[in-house]
């Protein structure tokens, strides 16, 4: 009983420390657990593979610069994938924090044959939330006067034959919550019938996106690190996310033990109260 009591009274800080240990240890010594590929990620990947070359794709970034260190490699990988398929990528952001991240993603592209302004463009941030999305979808070409860097849109040849959502073959959104799936389908999928896929979403938000995927309103989603790791496998470029999944495993072992331990203690306490 006393051991249990001790286990019940671990200081929060020890827990936090354990979390760090669970994350760091596999980083230093990878275990290499197998990763099964989920339907959701495969759908996104296959959709990009199936698009006709030359079609327009919206690459909509709702995440902020702070997500660069932990998901940046995935954003670059996805953009490179799009470009390698000879698609015309229009980068835009409906959240104020997005455009710099887009800028950073573009700076880190490894492909050199694709040209800014011809094969891809960063239009920056559109304010107005859903009103902004709606205006962008309806007539993007009259909304903008310059791209994010200040170049007049007349000088960007990619935009010559682009008028708005009607020309788009895929909407790829990267979101951490709001704006997110709800807004995408309200403003892009339902009125214009363009396919919407989630290029990255946090693991906590996927349960609320799942109904739309099951109803085929959204094609699929790359979910957090797990999805990124699967995407790396599909692209045949194993990288940081596959390595990171080992840490995930250990963290989940910790979460599991914490939940079970807490509840064992709770029931033991209840029983001892009854005996008294």
């Amino acid at each position: 009983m006393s051991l249990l009591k001790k286990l019940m009274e671990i200081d929060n800080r020890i827990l936090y420390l354990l979390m760090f240990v669970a994350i760091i240890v596999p980083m230093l010594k990878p275990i290499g657990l197998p990763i099964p590929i989920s339907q959701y990620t495969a759908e996104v990947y296959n959709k990009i593979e199936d698009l006709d070359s030359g079609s327009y794709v919206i690459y909509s970034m709702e995440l902020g610069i702070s997500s660069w260190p932990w998901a940046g490699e995935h954003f670059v990988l996805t953009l490179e994938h799009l470009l390698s398929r000879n698609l015309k990528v229009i980068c835009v952001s409906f959240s104020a924090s997005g455009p710099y991240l887009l800028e950073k993603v573009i700076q880190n592209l490894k492909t050199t044959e694709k040209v800014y302004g011809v094969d891809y463009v960063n239009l920056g941030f559109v304010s107005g939330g859903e009103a902004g999305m709606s205006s962008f979808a309806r007539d993007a070409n009259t909304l903008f006067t310059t791209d994010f860097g200040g170049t007049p849109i007349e000088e960007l040849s990619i935009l010559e034959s682009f008028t708005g959502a009607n020309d788009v073959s895929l909407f790829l959104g990267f979101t951490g919550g709001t704006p997110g799936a709800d807004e995408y389908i309200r403003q892009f999928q339902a009125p214009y019938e363009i396919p919407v896929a989630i290029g990255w979403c946090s693991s906590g938000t996927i349960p609320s996106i799942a109904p739309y995927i099951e109803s085929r309103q959204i094609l699929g989603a790359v979910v957090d690190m797990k999805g990124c790791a699967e995407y790396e496998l599909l692209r045949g470029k194993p990288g940081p996310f596959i390595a990171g999944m080992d840490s995930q495993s250990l963290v989940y072992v910790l979460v599991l033990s914490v939940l079970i331990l807490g509840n064992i203690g709770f029931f033991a306490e209840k029983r001892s109260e009854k005996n008294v």
Partner: protein
Amino acid sequence: MILQSGKMIGFLMLLTTVSFILYHIYRAEKGNPANIRKLAALEAIDELIGRAAEMGRPVHVTPGASAINHPSEAPQTFAGISVVNYIASSCAELNLPIIVTVGQAAVYPIVEEIVRTAYANEDNIFEPDYVRFIADAYSIAVQGILEREKPAANIMVGGFYNESVRFAEAGARAGALQVAGTARTYQIPFFVAACDYSLIGEEIFVAGAYISGDPVLIGSIAGQDLGKFLSIILILINGILTALGINWLHQLLGR
């Protein structure tokens, strides 16, 4: 005037639901509101306050950290304010100290007035520190109050963000019985897991409407119920028809 193709059913659905809501608001304003049920969590609040009175310890209540000028947040905050009102009058009746923490400047005067009136109505003394406005670091401050002042009951109804899990933990560690509710989907799980009673999603609006007796709120809740009934019926019919291989309703519902 041409209805855009494929949107007819959508327009009809909108029209029907809106007219349900309008009808019930109208009925409620005529003094004939629909009955809405009293939620278990609300009944629990009475019990919690009773327990606090026995223990002689204060009750903590907060209407959340949300603003009141945003369409998806204002209703939550006002539901929270209604709950504060309810608790303040119960506490005033028992002359029990109450701690109300407010994180939004615009909410503070409203809540202060409510609590002051509640204590004045019972001829009990209103202490100035019953209602506290916390300008910044709302989450840290409330956590501190829960830990130091150890309320016997902790009631949190309104719009909560990341702070929900910390409040719930701090409250539980202070030994308070907790009732909590929010309409923010990602915060509900923490309240359910860590509190004794919880209000999920729209339940907080129902609680607010039940307490305040506001005809517009009651009317719109009753109207929404009809909308939900309609949805359930559509789902059932659609399900049965598709199972039988009849697809006309399925196609009608959207492209």
